[in-house]
């Protein structure tokens, strides 16, 4: 029998062996092994609750929950009745709950969400507003079932499986539409490429509202019947070496992490710390530019603890293609190339069925080695953004998706060099904004991580000039003068770029997206507005 949907897989696997471990749930020092049957039972309880509340096939169910088994169960529960689940992040401790819920109210209205699953726990719960058409379901009110129900109308392969919401201002978040067939296709291909097998165990601290956590560390193991170990993201930030402990205890074989996480783990490891990492097949860097020096530092730290020389791997992925676009070979270390003054780490080759091309500003395809925008075509590509037809048309043309990322192809490998607007072209020479900002961040006196390098067109030179906007709390003019000089020297010594001007701005001047990234286009607009005054 062909299994058409994600839900079909968990139902059939539970029928085949309901006592097999579905996941190991880790929270505040406690561990809980959850069987497939227990998982499906709880997911069925959610499905039943949705049905009783009148949630229909195709209805959007928004899930805003923290690190809890119900987060997983409520998601699959929605799929069991053919509804469309989507995770959104909880408000952070520093966010104003009133503003958080006000913007979510607008988003839920725009996407016509039929249900919101959340919790009464936490300070923000008191601020949950009344939604005119969205039913609020508190996870703790959902009663468990005595018997597991296997008989659900889960739908067909072409149905929408879930929405993956982009980061960005809440009201403008775009829901990437993914069908069951796209998700299963991408997962199966990716599993084959990395050689995922029945003896593997995936360990993760990643949040589920991000595609990396959702696909690699929940849906892929679920569909392939592989247990996963899940750690609270908030707890992990405070105790990053928990990941290494879990890899040792559960003999974990795979984990996916963004670049900063490798660095964070290294920084949190003390001299006498030891873990047996010999079970690890791959720790895959993804979702942020993969930096060779970060990988080297990690490899150096953990080689003596059994970490294989080939264990550190790279991947290029995006929700618009479900997840993986490329993957480095898991049997050898990713290639490193010199590109100008910068060492570039390969993100590996395109997955089977994925075509990549690099184009210039006029849309012409570039030859190997030339940097341009990365476009991709695949049968696993998304079906547009939910209820945003204009946005969908802008990014999908003739079956090609414009990623907005810059990179180049070399000997079959993809190298990602930055975002389209991250590139500063100063008198014909390319500089990466990330590198300029990295250099500036080495200077003490600036608020860490709070600066942005922008290319600003200058009439007098008829070229772009580089401007660095940096937040500082220093107001003494003499100190600022010295600081400016230090920044320019530091950037020049790192990149050979001479910055035209450094603009100091007060704390919290720069605009960040909800995922914490500096928003370049918004800050460029704000900079022009400041200068126009």
């Amino acid at each position, binding site marked *: 029998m062909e299994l058409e949907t994600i839900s079909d897989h968990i139902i059939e696997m539970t029928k085949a062996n309901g006592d097999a471990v579905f996941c190991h749930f880790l929270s505040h020092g406690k561990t809980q092994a959850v069987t497939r049957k227990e998982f499906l039972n709880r997911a069925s309880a959610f499905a039943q609750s949705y049905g009783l509340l009148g949630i229909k096939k195709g209805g959007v169910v928004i899930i805003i929950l923290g690190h809890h088994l119900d987060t997983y169960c409520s998601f699959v529960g929605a799929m069991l009745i053919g509804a469309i689940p989507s995770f959104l992040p909880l408000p952070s401790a520093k966010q104003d709950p009133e503003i958080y819920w006000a913007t979510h109210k607008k988003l839920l209205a725009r996407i016509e969400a039929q249900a919101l699953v959340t919790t009464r726990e936490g300070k923000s719960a008191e601020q949950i507003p009344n939604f005119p058409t969205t039913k609020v379901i508190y996870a703790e009110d959902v009663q468990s079932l005595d018997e597991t129900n296997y008989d659900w109308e889960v739908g067909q392969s072409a149905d929408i499986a879930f929405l993956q919401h982009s980061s960005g201002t809440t009201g403008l978040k775009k829901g990437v539409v993914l069908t069951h067939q796209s998700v299963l296709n991408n997962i199966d291909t990716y599993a084959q490429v990395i050689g995922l097998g029945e003896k593997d165990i995936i360990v993760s601290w990643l949040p589920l509202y991000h595609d990396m956590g959702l696909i690699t560390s929940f849906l892929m193991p679920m569909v392939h019947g592989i247990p996963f170990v899940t750690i609270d993201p908030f707890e992990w930030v405070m105790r990053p070496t928990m990941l290494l402990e879990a890899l040792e205890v559960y003999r974990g074989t795979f984990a996916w992490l963004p670049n900063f996480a490798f660095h964070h783990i290294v920084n949190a490891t003390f001299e006498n710390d030891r873990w047996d990492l010999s079970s690890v097949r791959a720790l895959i860097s993804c979702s942020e530019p993969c930096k060779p020096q970060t990988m080297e530092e990690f490899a150096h730290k953990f080689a003596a603890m059994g970490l294989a020389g080939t264990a550190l791997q790279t991947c290029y992925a995006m929700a618009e293609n479900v997840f993986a676009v490329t993957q480095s070979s898991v049997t050898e270390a990713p290639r490193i190339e010199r590109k100008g003054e910068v060492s570039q780490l390969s993100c590996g080759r395109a997955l089977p069925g994925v075509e990549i091309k690099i184009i210039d500003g006029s849309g012409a395809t570039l030859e190997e080695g030339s940097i341009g925008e990365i476009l991709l075509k695949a049968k696993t590509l998304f079906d547009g953004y939910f209820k945003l037809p204009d946005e969908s048309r802008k990014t999908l043309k003739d079956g090609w998706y414009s990623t907005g990322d810059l990179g180049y192809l070399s000997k079959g490998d993809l190298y990602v060099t930055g975002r389209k607007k991250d590139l500063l072209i100063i008198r014909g020479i390319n500089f990466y904004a990330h590198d300029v900002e990295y250099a500036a961040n080495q200077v003490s006196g600036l608020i860490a*991580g709070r600066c942005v390098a922008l290319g600003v067109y200058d009439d007098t030179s008829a070229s772009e000039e580089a401007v660095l906007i940096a937040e500082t709390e220093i107001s003494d003019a003499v100190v600022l003068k010295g600081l400016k000089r230090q920044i320019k020297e530091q950037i020049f010594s790192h990149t050979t770029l001479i910055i035209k001007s450094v603009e100091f701005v007060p704390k919290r001047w720069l605009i960040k997206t909800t995922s914490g990234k500096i928003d370049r286009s918004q800050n460029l607009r704000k900079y022009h507005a400041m200068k126009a005054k």
Partner: protein
Amino acid sequence: MDRQETLNQLISVMGTVLDIKGIVVGEETNAYDVDGWDSLSHARFVLAVEQHFQIRFPGDLLFDMENIGDMLEAIIDLLKAANG
């Protein structure tokens, strides 16, 4: 070790992780007062404090400490518990 000595040691550990030059650190000091005191550096700070005082903060407390005074109270309680 009295409260003032514990606070002095805590501030000394803080200086190894966070840039507190030019800042007068007291019990009211919190993340907004110190450049670069974000969630990642906070984690490094907590780990350095644990190693220095040979204690381990309970998981739920990690997210409830809002300033240096809260951290100091927690250290004093944990040291008391450890010394019986």
